[in-house]
């Protein structure tokens, strides 16, 4: 029983019981509820994972008191954040201050739409999925800027400005890295990009240029999601908490959740572009191995690859020291951008000459 057949059965059952319009409305509601509950679960899982990973890296135990192995720790934290008072500072711009966290979470929700979670299991199969993702993810900076400005606090404004400069510049090399795969697969649709990797993932098929693109993509999205070593926007030792210094309670939790969901989404896009999304791992003509791999459900492949990349990004956070602002901008404009520009030209030559593995 796969996820797509389950969705199909629900669709047919609803069609059998009511008119087409109501089916559409009900399916939208179901999708909305699923996305919201997925958000909640994702937040809990990723916070727990981050704390355990960091503890493991630093030879500590991590959360271990609430529930078995500390599994309920994130629940306890969420409950605490829910019942805390959501304070609005006196000097803040009240309307923008309260709407900024909602904007941040809305952008993350919009990004969920084109992601194929399993074979044929996707909310909106838009034919320009890749462009849609890069367009919508570039909007996340607006809510960060608004949050920093409306707090009426120097730390917040500085954090927001840093974050703005960082996201706008790193978007370029992330876009270039995405473009290499678009050139190779000849399509902007996420479904077709995955289909093009049936006989091997682009990371393996595309020689060195795709590996360079993958490395650049991972660096750029780490910066875009404001995570260490690029967490200039909320550098605790310099800016208290950056753009969300003044936020408390549920509004803070929404920013926190949006950050983790964005990490999930960029890793999911990375898995789709470079690691074949829900495509199982196949090794050439080794039929026995390929058949065993086919038995693993596509949703598990997708989640496995995505969480592998999330682990990589968490690993960065606990390994590298934070960059300075000038180093950060120098890395992008002096190194990553020229390299990725040359890389795009290389990949174009590769695609035209057909030198990648087919």
């Amino acid at each position, binding site marked *: 029983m796969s996820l797509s057949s389950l969705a199909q059965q629900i669709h047919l059952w609803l069609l059998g019981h009511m008119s087409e*319009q109501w089916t*559409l409305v009900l399916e939208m509601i179901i999708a909305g509820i699923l996305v919201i509950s997925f958000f909640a679960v994702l937040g809990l899982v990723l916070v727990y994972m981050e704390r355990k990973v960091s503890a493991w890296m630093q030879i500590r135990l991590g959360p271990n008191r609430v529930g078995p192995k500390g599994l309920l720790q994130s629940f306890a934290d969420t409950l605490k954040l829910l019942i805390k008072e959501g304070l609005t500072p006196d000097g803040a*711009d009240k309307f*923008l201050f309260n709407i900024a966290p909602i904007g941040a979470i809305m952008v993350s929700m919009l990004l969920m739409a084109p992601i194929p979670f399993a074979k044929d299991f996707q909310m909106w199969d*838009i*034919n*320009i999925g890749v*462009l*849609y993702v*890069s*367009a*919508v993810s*570039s*909007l996340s*900076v*607006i809510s960060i*800027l*608004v949050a*920093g*400005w409306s707090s009426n606090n120097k730390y917040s*404004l500085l954090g*927001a*400005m840093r974050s*703005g400069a960082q996201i*706008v510049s790193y*978007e370029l090399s992330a876009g270039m890295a995405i473009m290499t795969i678009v050139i190779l697969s000849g399509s*902007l649709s996420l479904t077709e990009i995955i289909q093009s990797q049936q006989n091997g993932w682009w990371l393996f098929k595309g020689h060195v240029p795709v590996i360079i693109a993958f490395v650049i993509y991972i660096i750029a999205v780490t910066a875009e999601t404001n995570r260490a070593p690029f967490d200039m926007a909320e550098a605790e030792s310099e800016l208290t908490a950056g753009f969300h210094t003044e936020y408390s309670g549920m509004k803070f939790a929404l920013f926190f959740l949006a950050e983790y969901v964005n990490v999930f989404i960029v890793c999911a896009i990375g898995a789709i572009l470079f690691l074949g999304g829900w495509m199982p791992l196949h090794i050439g003509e080794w039929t026995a191995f390929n058949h065993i791999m086919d038995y693993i459900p596509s949703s598990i492949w997708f989640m496995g690859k995505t969480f592998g990349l999330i682990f990589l990004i968490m690993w960065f956070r606990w390994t590298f020291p934070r960059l300075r602002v000038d180093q950060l901008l120098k890395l992008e404009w002096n190194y990553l951008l020229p390299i990725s520009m040359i890389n795009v030209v290389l990949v174009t030559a590769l695609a035209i000459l057909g030198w990648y593995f087919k």
Partner: protein
Amino acid sequence: MSATQILFWFLSALAIVSALSVVISKNPVYSVLSLIITFFAVSGHYILLNAQFIGIVNLIVYAGAIMVLFLFVIMLMNLNQDNEPQKNKWLKMAGVVSGGCLMLVFVAAFKTSEVNGKIAQTIDGNIGLTETLGKALFNEYVVPFEISSILFLSAMVGAVVIGKKGD
């Protein structure tokens, strides 16, 4: 009313209201944010016309890049209602009158134009798809396209030159 029509009227109302609030709101930050909402509504219209590529590019270029820079500059300058110079009352009146004249001309022009007779193709029109657009840009309009790219390049070089002046 079909779903497309409901969406069309909703997006149109949103576009007009937010465009008005760009002009009306006293705080420049609110103006920029309203402009972003206007771009969203216009992108929605593009997507209703099945021109998804243009809609998304509109979002990337305007809402994602240009408006972020606008926000950046306005927030750093920290313009407030108090220290913003208030325009003369007569100047405001003159602005309203000339704007109204422009609208009158537009209405008169569009009343007799051919736009009336054409119904926009929604859902199955393919004029805005990436492939159609790319073929049109690189076959029929390749010279203007390249010339405009040179224009952008010169603008970028100019920005670098101005930025380097201090050193």
